[in-house]
């Protein structure tokens, strides 16, 4: 099965993933979130008590499904390769940086597209930052940026992350060890089996189509290649139809209940960080999970960085708050990025520039 050899097949893969996201939203995932890698990693980190934000703690089966879906399909189609050794600690830092940027904006690139399809104009503003971030990463690539080679390693190294997510699934189903939000976004979720199957399908199609949000914009800027962009377009169209058909399409900035804020500059800068760091890491948060599933220990280290980044965001007060209605006064309380988050975002931009312009391919040094 090859989904990446024509734009039509790629768009079809996007449509399938869009349908999965739409189903998850229909069956209970938070409105306008449906499927967000950053949010779901943050929730899973919370389930293990890595942070204490009680409203965002839940071991999301979607994350488990994504990794396992990519693992199973890559083994079945002989694309599984256990590799490691391409600057793992820099990738760990990039994982942290991606997560901090995502939680300043309140979503990964996948959720940005889902929010865009629901009429959230904040996400369209953030897209400006994301494109600029990807463009900066492309500039670094043109200047010879590289994190160096990964090498084929013991098969068992690539099995570690899939084994860990199976462990998370068992713990969440068979024990009461993991924390689970009683209120807030963490308490809103589709039934476990639907979320798990949705994750498996999404993971398999994302692996076969090479779906990557940063990669799609990167390829357009770098090579005027719209292949990966067609996957995103397919997903966007399905979610747009779903949102309009179910009355979830609300055009505007201050939309309470969808976990978003209208701090425009920080929406732009948050996604600038995500776009920039994702190009340097070789893929968006979704792609990192997929690559980790198909055997890349380097991508698994990036995922570990995202978990730590998520914990830091809530432990150090970096994450933005969403616009919400005060339940008592019914007044609109605007969401915002705290000062700590703004400082962290600027530090992340500096870190991206240092990484981008100090790591060069050997022959271009």
């Amino acid at each position: 099965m090859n989904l990446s050899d024509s734009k039509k097949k790629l768009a079809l893969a996007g449509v399938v993933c869009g349908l999965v996201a739409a189903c998850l939203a229909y069956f209970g995932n938070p409105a306008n979130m449906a499927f967000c890698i950053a949010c779901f990693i943050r929730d899973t980190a919370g389930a293990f008590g890595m942070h204490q934000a009680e409203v965002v703690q839940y071991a999301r089966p979607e994350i488990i499904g994504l990794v396992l879906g990519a693992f199973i399909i890559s083994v079945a189609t002989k694309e599984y390769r256990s590799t490691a050794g391409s600057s793992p600690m820099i990738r760990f830092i990039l994982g942290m940086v991606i997560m901090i940027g995502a939680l300043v904006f309140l979503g990964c690139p996948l959720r940005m597209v889902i929010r865009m399809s629901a009429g959230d104009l904040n996400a369209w503003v953030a897209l400006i930052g994301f494109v600029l971030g990807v463009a900066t990463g492309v500039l670094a690539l043109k200047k010879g940026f590289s994190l160096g080679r990964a090498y084929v390693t013991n098969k068992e190294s690539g099995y570690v992350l899939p084994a860990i997510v199976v462990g998370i699934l068992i713990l969440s189903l068979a024990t009461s060890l993991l924390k689970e939000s009683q209120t807030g976004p963490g308490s809103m979720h589709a039934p476990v089996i639907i979320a798990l199957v949705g994750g498996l399908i999404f993971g398999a199609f994302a692996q076969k189509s090479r779906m990557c949000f940063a990669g799609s914009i990167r390829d357009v800027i770098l090579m005027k290649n719209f292949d990966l962009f067609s996957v995103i377009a397919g997903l966007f169209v399905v979610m747009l139809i779903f949102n309009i058909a179910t009355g979830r399409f609300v055009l505007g900035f201050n939309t309470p209940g969808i976990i978003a804020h209208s701090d425009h500059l920080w929406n732009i800068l948050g996604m600038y960080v995500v776009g920039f760091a994702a190009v340097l890491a070789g893929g968006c948060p979704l792609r990192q999970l997929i690559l980790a599933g198909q055997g890349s220990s380097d991508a698994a280290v990036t995922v570990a960085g995202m978990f730590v980044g998520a914990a830091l965001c809530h432990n150090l007060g970096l994450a933005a708050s969403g616009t919400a209605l005060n339940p008592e006064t019914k007044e609109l309380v605007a969401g915002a990025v705290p000062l700590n988050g703004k400082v962290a975002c600027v530090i992340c931009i500096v870190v991206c520039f240092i990484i981008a312009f100090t790591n060069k391919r050997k022959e271009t040094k």
Partner: protein
Amino acid sequence: MKEVDARGLSCPEPIMLTAEALKGAQGAVKVLVTEPHQKMNVEKYAKDHGKKTHSEEKDGYFEVVIE
């Protein structure tokens, strides 16, 4: 024959190096990559630029010859 050793490099480096090599190449170009999707990307890039390819799986990597 010009050789591009892109084994173990992250996307889009294999394609960037292939494009660079094809620019100044007189004859065939041999590209080495690790991941199956990188092999497909290189083949597709060559096809889009009117070139023929011949690919072979070696020990832990792929060899794509672009002519």
